[in-house]
């Protein structure tokens, strides 16, 4: 790592990397042939190859978004990215069979330990593909399907074919098109009717190589009356050149089902994180996005819920931390298409050392949707004068029976708060850490405890040495 990169990241503790020891690596750059080669390598059905190619053509024609951080977006060099990299011969179900360097990486990230203690299933993706995968026996016996996406397509093509691109069509946006063209890895989950998956299922995404593109694709279907909590974490080494992470996540909650999707995104600050996440909520179902963005260079991500069924409910609880050179452009989109649907958006952001946090939200109520309720709260904490916070809320309400609340605040840490905490023995950095952790508490309390502790620790690290 060069000095600039080191300065930019400070104490990013996941910045280590392994020697790149790939078994298959595609040349840099993207052409239709690359897309076809990925599909062929994976031995996919023709319909999937066709979707990929269509998506690629759309991607190639589609202009870059003219909103968000255009300067950063236009700096992406699509020709400098590796679109597929296989590091392991297969997906193992025993950590001892995973190549040692990769296993060590996940050991350092604490994944096998977490798996033993409190997870219902784990998938660990390294570069383009899953290297490890497991599901608890009892869940398997109840008919829960949990695969990495490539295996999901092989084992259950009929389900994948039915739902793939049904929530996020490839033409949705440039990066959804890119993902659909070159997707690899991600998770496929089906929870049968009435089954409650009590322990969270976790996916961990790790980029190791330089200039890597990671394009995982996740599809979760919760059948009637079922529930699941899916957690994803992600990190990458710190390099002075950029990598691209562009995922698509599609959730389908059938009648009465609940899906909670939690993310703690902690990419290194050389990663572009451009992700499309959307769920469709049928009658009386609930979709919750719990979305934490700590790392990356530029994140553009707006978890969305289409409230299609009457009485369905959406929650988006998100936090964003932006330090030096980072822009977190995040938010939420809720589409109230049916009557008596409810939603809640809570967005909290902190910016520091010249970082920039943006909230970008869309709330839509369709003409036919009666008696919808929504509450949106956006709070920003700006830690110094070099940093920037802005909000872009859009509301399109076509039904006058809707009951909407929107609150927004921008605050600073007061010198009285710092003095009070320092009078209780906390150094200035520690005091700042306490205030910041407190600010994010409405988010962290939604996370499994292990993640909450980790997140608080990360934020505390970010506060260290930051005060002049």
């Amino acid at each position, binding site marked *: 790592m060069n000095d600039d990169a080191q300065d930019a990241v400070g104490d990013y503790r996941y910045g280590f990397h392994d020697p790149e020891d790939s078994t298959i690596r595609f040349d840099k750059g993207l052409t239709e042939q690359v897309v076809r080669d990925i599909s062929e390598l994976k031995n996919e059905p023709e319909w999937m190859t066709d979707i990929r190619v269509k998506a690629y053509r759309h991607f190639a024609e589609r202009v870059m978004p003219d909103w968000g951080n255009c300067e950063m977006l236009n700096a992406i060099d699509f020709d400098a990215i590796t679109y597929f990299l296989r590091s392991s011969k297969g997906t193992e179900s025993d950590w001892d069979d995973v190549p040692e360097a990769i296993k060590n990486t996940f050991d350092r990230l604490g994944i096998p330990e977490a798996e033993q203690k409190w997870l219902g299933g784990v998938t660990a993706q390294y570069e383009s593909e899953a290297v490890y995968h497991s599901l608890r026996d009892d869940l398997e016996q109840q008919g829960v399907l949990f695969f990495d996406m490539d295996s999901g397509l092989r084992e259950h093509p009929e389900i994948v074919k039915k739902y793939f691109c049904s929530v996020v069509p490839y033409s949705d946006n440039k990066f959804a098109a890119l993902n659909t063209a070159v997707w690899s890895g991600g998770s496929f989950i089906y929870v049968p009717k009435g089954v409650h998956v009590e322990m969270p299922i976790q996916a961990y995404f790790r980029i190791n190589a330089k200039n890597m593109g990671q394009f995982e694709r996740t599809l979760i279907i919760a059948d009637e009356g079922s529930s699941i909590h899916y957690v994803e974490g992600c990190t990458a080494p710190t390099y002075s050149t950029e990598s691209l992470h562009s995922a698509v996540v599609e959730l389908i909650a059938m009648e009465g089902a609940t899906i909670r999707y939690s993310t703690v995104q902690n990419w290194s600050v050389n990663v572009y994180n451009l992700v499309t996440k959307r769920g469709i909520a049928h009658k009386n179902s609930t979709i919750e996005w719990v979305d934490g963005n700590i790392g990356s260079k530029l994140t553009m991500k707006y978890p969305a819920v289409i409230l299609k069924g009457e009485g369905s409910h959406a929650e988006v609880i998100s936090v964003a931390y932006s330090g030096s050179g980072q822009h977190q452009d995040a938010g939420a989109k809720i589409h109230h298409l049916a009557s008596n649907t409810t939603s809640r958006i809570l967005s909290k952001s902190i910016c520091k050392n010249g970082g920039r946090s943006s909230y970008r939200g869309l709330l839509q109520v369709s003409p036919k949707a009666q008696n919808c309720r929504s509450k949106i709260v956006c709070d920003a904490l700006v830690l110094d004068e070099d940093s920037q916070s802005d909000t872009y809320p859009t509301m399109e309400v076509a039904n006058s029976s809707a009951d909407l609340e929107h609150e927004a605040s921008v605050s600073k840490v*007061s*010198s*009285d*708060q710092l*003095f*009070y*905490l*320092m*009078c*209780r*023995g*906390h*150094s*200035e950095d*520690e*005091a700042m850490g*306490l*205030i910041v*952790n*407190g*600010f*994010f*508490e*409405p988010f962290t309390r939604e996370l499994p405890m292990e993640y909450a502790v980790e997140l608080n620790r990360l934020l505390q690290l970010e506060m260290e040495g930051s005060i002049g």
Partner: protein
Amino acid sequence: MAEEVLRLSDLHVSVEGTEIIKGLSLVINQGEVHAIMGRNGSGKSTLANVLMGHPAYEITSGEIYYQGKPLVDLEVHERARAGMFLSFQYPSAIPGVQVGNFLRKSVNSVQGESALSAREFRVELKQRMELLSMDKTFLSRYVNDGFSGGEKKRLEILQMLLLQPKLAILDETDSGLDIDALKVVSEGINSMPSQTSSLIITHYQRLLDYVKPDFVHAMIDGNFVKSGGPELAIELEEKGYDWLEV
């Protein structure tokens, strides 16, 4: 002779260029309880803040020694770790930080390796909260967030009891308390070990009905104009401050 805890000599303090404390001298020995009485604006709270090292207050001349060493060398948190404690007149709210976690963290910060184990701490905490008639639901609330005046003061006293300071500075701890709360808070103060030194800053004499001072100082315009024993507090309550003005 008792050990000296705090010595102020000819202390001058300014805030934004305006002198508030004008040549104050004071010695507090171990175990002594000093009360400073004065009207609003006389410089009482400034003294409390400057003792803890609030950055807005500038010492323009004079010295402060704590346990025989110059205090200015210590950062705010180092003063707390060295055994100084300020009970705030207006404690800040820290949203999202639960009282229980905050107390534990503060005790660990101040006492370092000599802090109680988690289990001993819980026992201690329970006892102290009972003494102050604090319900255990306090522990899961956010620090001072939405607290009533009385609740804030109880939390201040609870922190003092847990942190076991060598020098406790109580800034207007009695303000905003009804008589029942005042009694509870006073009981808390009186349960401090006898070797603790205290500096009680107050507007009224009523706290001093419950907490007996060894010395009382009347403060006007940034300086002590009269010092005496507990009887001075009663005299000030009866006669006000005008008779002391030059």
